[in-house]
Structures are given as structure tokens and as C-alpha cells.
């Protein structure tokens, strides 16, 4: 009896090592289910801004 209890406790202990995070993400093949990447500005606006930056900084003098 004692052995059983010890082994259950031991097994629980070992298995607890496999535990990583309480928040569980439900996976679906090929579907990203993480946090949504909300961007501070619309893509078009950013595109224009980045183009301007590129022309300012990466051109050959």
C-alpha cells in the first residue's frame, strides 16, 4: 500500500515537470492562434512613412 502511494506521489511529481503554462492555446493546423498583432497605424500609412525613411537613409548619397 505504502509503495503504491509513494509511486503515485513520485509519478505525479515527475509528471508535474512536464507542466509548462496554465494558459492553453488551442491549435489548428496552419492557423496562427496567438495574440493579434495590432499595429498602431494602418499599413498604408506605415508604408508611406517607411518609404520616406528609406529614401532618407539608405540611398547612395
Amino acid at each position: 500500500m505504502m509503495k503504491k502511494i509513494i509511486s503515485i506521489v513520485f509519478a505525479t511529481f515527475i509528471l508535474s515537470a512536464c507542466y509548462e503554462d496554465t494558459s492553453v492555446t488551442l491549435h489548428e493546423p496552419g492557423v496562427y492562434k496567438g495574440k493579434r498583432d495590432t499595429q498602431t497605424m494602418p499599413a498604408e500609412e506605415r508604408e508611406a512613412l517607411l518609404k520616406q525613411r528609406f529614401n532618407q537613409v539608405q540611398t547612395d548619397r
Partner: protein
Amino acid sequence: MSLLPTAMINKADAAQRRQHSYDEGEITKKRSVCTHCSVGCGVVAEVQNGVWIGQEPSFDHPFNLGSHCAKGASVREHGHGDKRLKYPMKKVAGEWQRISWDQAIDEIGDQMLAIRESAGPDSVYWLGSAKFNNEQAYLFRKFAAFWGSNNVDHQARICHSTTVAGVANTWGFGAMTNSYNDIHNSKCIFIIGANPAEAHPVSLQHILRGKERGGKVIVVDPRFSRTAAHADHYIRIRPGADIPFVWGMIWHMFQNGWEDEQFINQRVYGMDEIRAEVAKWTPDEVERVTGVKEADVFQAAKTMYEHKPGTVVWCMGITQHTVGNSNTRALCILQLVLGNMGVSGGGTNIFRGHDNVQGATDFGVTSNSLPGYYGLSQDAWEHWARVWDVDYNWIASQFDQASYEELNGSPVSPMFTNGITVSRWIDGVLEDPENITQKDILRAMVLWGHAPNSQTRGPEMKAAMEKLDLLVIVDPFPTVSAVMNDRQDNVYLLPAATQFETYGSLTSSNRSVQWREQIMAPLFESLPDHNIIYRFAEKFGFADQLCKHIAVNDGEPLIEDITREYNRGMWACGYTGQTPERLKLQLANLHTFNKTTLKAEGGPCDGEFYGLPWPCWGTAEMKHPGTHILYDTSIPVAEGGSPFRARFGVEREGQNLLAEGSWTAGSEIEDGYPEFTSDMLKELGWWNDLTAEEKAEAEGKNWKTDLSGGIQRVAIKHGCAPYGNAKARAIVWQFPDPVPIHREPLYTPRRDLVAEYPTYEDRRNFYRLPTRYGSIQAQDFSQEFPLIMTSGRLVEYEGGGEETRSNPWLAELQQDMFIEINPADANNAGIRDGRQVWVEGPEGGAVKVMAMVTPRVERGVVFMPFHFGGHYQGEDLKDKYPEGTAPYVRGESCNVVFTYGYDSVTAMQETKVSLCRVRPA
């Protein structure tokens, strides 16, 4: 150990980081300049709550357009300073103890005063630094003068002193003649003894720009470097055979009539002697001595002739030789032959090493000159005494009153004799006092911003450090000086602030003077260098003299006042127009400067060159724009034009030394003329152009000593250069070798050439010390030590490497000190790539390093970077650093193996040719 995967960055770590935080405090931008090399790249720092939290590219900056190399892109690490020396420390019975600044200054000062009493002021060596800004460098030289010694020097001695001497004696000023940006206009870029891709990476932006605009790149180097990889033509040369190679090129030029006859006739003196010497260097002889095939030499010569204007770039590969001064002059002559001087895209572009080594040189942190290359003559002292507004006799009384040398048959005070050089300070300690031409040996050494591992003869340096009575290290880091010796007592470490923790001006390699803003307050207990200088001055009792016209706030001399003071005295090399106000205005208007011509187009600085590159003549009110390209006669002096300097008289042996038929645009004297004096103004009838105050000051003075600037103003008003209009000298008659001639290195493997091309005779007194040449070369080491050893830089590290090896972002990239060795040599010695080897030198030094088997070096040549330190002959010195200050990466210093050898004019150390052997460890 946890098996659980943890997030890369946990919260506790994040809190300790000095990183951007989005929700606290306003972010301000500060503009500074990278402290790692001489290009002078602009740095934009983002500061929040006094913490340097971000680094942005400085796109407006004309030099780098936001670019950086590995070092520049990592300067924000200075804001962490994890491995910095945090407070003053003192070694007592082998243990480092924390002490206060007051205690440190008191104890050091008392000991120095005692040494001064017993051994004279020359027994304390004040070793300064190219890491000072201009104001600190100037104040440091002034401080040493007030202490009463010329035993003051800095790294320029061991990097470009031969350039300064050789180039200045050829045409007037010892500096880069054009600019990095001007290389855009070069049609041929001839790089010899330089590896800018690793030592000055941002300069490659300009070089490659020139290349893409049709310029040809020729690289001459013993090593296939990263620069060589971008060359159109790479030529491998035997180390130490530069003069024969250059003469070989010129041989082809003379042979084919490729020289610029008109330019030589108008603007060059002594070319006939050069012709005679060059005639000896037939293609066969060149190949025998240099190992370069005729076709390569011919091709290089032809390319330079066909692609004009061409520029010549050199660095330590040329300067660090016993014949360094001759090397630099030979290259000047190459440009004179081609007529490539004074034109955009031409010139000698000498890339300097430290961010402010040009400035520190200009401000005379050298044992042979006062600020502004005035020298050590009585006139020079009197000039500076007037600028400083102190009694000349008081300064003279500070010096040792006895005489140890004779000049023209009469004894001279140490005040007027060259001090010991930094390259030889160890001999100043170890040499028999009988042989030293000063009162006593060196007893106290102040290493102020200097890495000892950048200097040769490591074991002897260790002995010298141990023999000293007192060793003082002033630096942001403990440096190798703190650990390489076995001293148990009387070592002091004083924490200096970096240039990011203070502000002021600096001079980049192209002579541009830039202003830095302060990014953050000094970290920990560190102090800016000028504060420390002031503290010592207070201790020695001349603080009031030192800062007579400089405001002092809380022990900090006001930087702007120092700038204004040197503006009043630096006439000789044109540091008089760069006032703090003008420099700050430029800093605020970086975007208005053209990125190739460096000239402001519109805006408040309209017409000025970026950084007011010296010479920036006259007073600031004259609004001289600075001189972008030296010796350019196509524009008026008032707009930055200049002829060659009349520095060496007007005639010699019946030959005219002044220019003939050549003058700067708009010059009213349409021929050569000597330097301007008050008498000359009177002769020319221009005296009355001076104002009454100017007349009073200028009477009896010359363009260098007239503190009113009137003589310069009037000369320039008439389109003339204040320093005259002369020829460049192809022969420098007062040097040991007036015509540069080849001399084999002291440690040469080519014994067959020694008889024909011997080195100099030993000298009894050279910068106060006996110096050996022939006695070393007489011995044959080449059997036992068959490999030629040379050294150089890595892109990740700088100088002695202490600050860069303490920067984890850089240190991670180069974790092992290594030696490059050709596969053939490695196989012969049983050496495998990545294994440890012992490198042993003929003077007994040995280092244990990692082998890098690579075709970068050819058979018979090995290469080591010189940035490592913290190991000594196989032993890791980690435990000898004060706690928490050991750099992330430590390794052997190659200079433990490097040997004796000093340039015949400047005592530059020889680090580019020596001998060694390598065996598996």
C-alpha cells in the same frame, strides 16, 4: 537546474537593463561623435531620465550618414559600463582597496612632490591620451608645462608620429590633406600599409563610392585583408620593403615620362636627388627586395598615371618602422611626381587611429612640441606664456634648472629639449641613469588613457612597471597596466569618464573639428579628465595659474573657456577660427553640408566646410571657412585654398625653395613668397591695412605669434597664405636620410640584404636615451626565428581593446586571441587550425594564442591583432583585476613578443616587422 524552458528575457532582467522604457519620462536626443576611430562618425543618443537608452543613426552627419562599424554601433554600451572602474582604488599589499578621490589625489600628489624634490620634475612621466577631447588635451599639455617637464606624450607617438614628421617636413602640415568624403572624387585609390575595412570601416563607404564612380582601388599589403578583398588590384609585399616598392613604381613613371613635369617644376624642390635614388631601383632589384613582380609594379604605376587624380592612403603599415619617416616621405614624393597634390580626389589621405589623435597631436601632447607645433624653442614658450598670461620666468623656474644636453655647443635646459617618448618610457625607467640625458630615471608613471599592451617589449615593460616608485592609472577601465605587473603596493587607479560623459571639441582625421554634446553624467565616481587635471593642479598649487582665464565650476574647468583660450594661441595650424559658437552652430545644421564637398549650401553656415578643417585662419570674426583640401591653389585662401608652406627658408644651395609660377587663386603676389611677418607687411605696403590695436600687437611679430590675428587677416585679404608660398621638399636635409632610402628592418629574415641596405648606427642620445640600431641588426636571428611577424587591427576592437573587450556586444564576436599563419607554415610546424600555439620572439617574449590557419598571410609571414591583453605568457590575469572589472574577453598581447626598434626621427616603435617562431602548445 530547471528543465523548464524560460522566456528569453524575464522580468527581473528587464528591470536591470538600461533599455528603452515606453512609459516613463521624455526622451531627448544628444549628438556626439564615436570615440573609436578617426573617421568621426556622428552618434545620436536617446536619453531618458539621464539614462542612455537608445542609439539612432545620425543620417545628417556628413561623414557617416548614419553608418557605423561594429564599434560605433555599440557605443551605447558605455551607458551600461558594467566592467568600468567604479571608484578610485589603491593597491595595498597586493589587494585593491577602494579610496576616496581626495585621498587618492593627496597621496599621489605628496609622492610626486617628494620625487620632484629628490629627482627633479622629469622623473614623473605624464602620459596623456588621444582619447582626450581637444580641450582636455590642451589643458593636459599646459598642465605638464606647469609641472615643469617635457616628459609628456601620447599615442600619436606610436601611430602616426612618423607621418606627422615626414609629411610636415615635406610640405608644411603633418596631417591628412583631403578628407574621407573627398575620396568620392578619386579616380585611383592607392592603399598601402592600411586596412581601412577593419580599422576605419566607415571610410570604405567613401572608398567604395569612389570605386563605383570609376575609381580603381589598389591595395598593397603583406596580408590579404578585408580591404584587399575590395581592390581591383592587390599586391602582396614583404613587410618592411615599402620604399623599394614605391621607388619601383616611380621608376616606371620616370621611365615612361608619366611624371607631372609642370607641377614638379613649379612646386617641388629636390626631385633630382630622388631621380638619382630611384634609378637604382630597377624592376629586378625591386623584385629581389620586395618580392613583387615587375608586372604588378608596372600595372600599379600605370593605373595611377592613367587614373588621375588619385589618392594615397596609408596607416600603421607604413609608419611603424625604423624607417617610418622615410616611408611616409616616399609616398608624399609619389604624389608629387604625379602632381596629385592640392586637388580634389588626390592628396595623401592618412587615416589616423583614435577619435582625437589628430587633435591631441595638434595640441602638443608630445614630448617635442607645445600646442600648435610651436616646438620647444624659447620663442614658442614665450608665445604660449603670453597666451596663458603667465610669467615666462615662472614656467622656466618650474623646470629642472640643470643642463644635460648641448645645443650648438652651449648647454640647454630640459625645458628646451625633447622629452622621453611614450614608446621608450620603459627605457627611461630601466636604463642606467648615467646614459639618460636628464637628472634621474623615471620614478613615477602616470598612464592617463593609455593601453600598455599597444606597446612593444612586454616583458621589459613589466619590469619597468615593477621598478617604478609610483604607478598611476587614470582611465575608465583598469587597463592591462593594472594587472600585467606584479606590484603589490603603490598602484593607483583613478576612474576617468568617457567622452560621452562630458563635452567639447575633437578633431577627426581630416582636420575637421566637431563638437560633442554630453550624453549623460559621469558614471559611478568617475570624473572627466579636465576635472582630474584641475585636481592635480590644485594639489601642486598652480590651479589658479592653469585656469587663469578659464572659469571653474565645482572643480570643473569650463570647456568653452578652454576652447576660447586655445583659439587665442593656435595660429600656426589655424585653430583660431573654431570657436565653440561656430562649432555648435554647425552641429545644429549638419544637414546643410554637402556630403562630398563638405561645404554648407545655404543655411547659417553657408560656405563653411564641415568642422572648419584647420587651418581655419584668423579670428572667428573673419569667418574663414576652414580648409577642406590642403595645398589647393585653385581657390583663394579666404575660401579654403592654400599653397605649400614656406617653412624651411627661401633658398638652399642657391636653389629657390619658394614656389615658381604657382600661387593661390586671387593672390596679389603672383609667385612664391616667404611666411608673413610684420616687417614683410611693411615692405609690401600692407601695414596700414591693420587696425591700430592690431598694429600694436603685431609689431615685431609674425603670422604665428601675432595674437591679434591682424597679420593673417591682411595676408588673406590680399589673397596670400599667412605661412608663405613655397615648394614641397622631396628631400628633408635635416633628417638622417634626406632622401628616403631602403634600410632593412632590425629583425630581418633577409640577411643577404643587410650589407647593402644596413640600418642606422646606434645613437647615444635620442629623445634623452641611447638607441640601438646596427648592434641589433648585426645579430642573425633568422635561423632560430624564421617567421616574419606583423600586427594590426580587428574591426571589433580598438587600441589596447580594454573598453571594447569589456563590451559584451563586441567581445562576443572575438573571443580568442589568435595568430594568422599560412597553411604551409602551419603544416610544417604541425599546427592545426583552432589549436593553441606558442609564439616566441627573439627577445624572449612568448605568448600562447590560438592558431588561425589561413591564406590571408603568405608563407613565412604571421599576423597577430594587438588588441588583446589580460593574459601574460600563458597565464590568465583575471584575478588581478579589481573585482568585477575584468573584461569579458582576455588574451595574450602580441606586443609581449614584439621587439626593439624605433624610427630614426620620432622614435616610433617598430611593430610591423619582427621575427618569431611558432610551435604547438
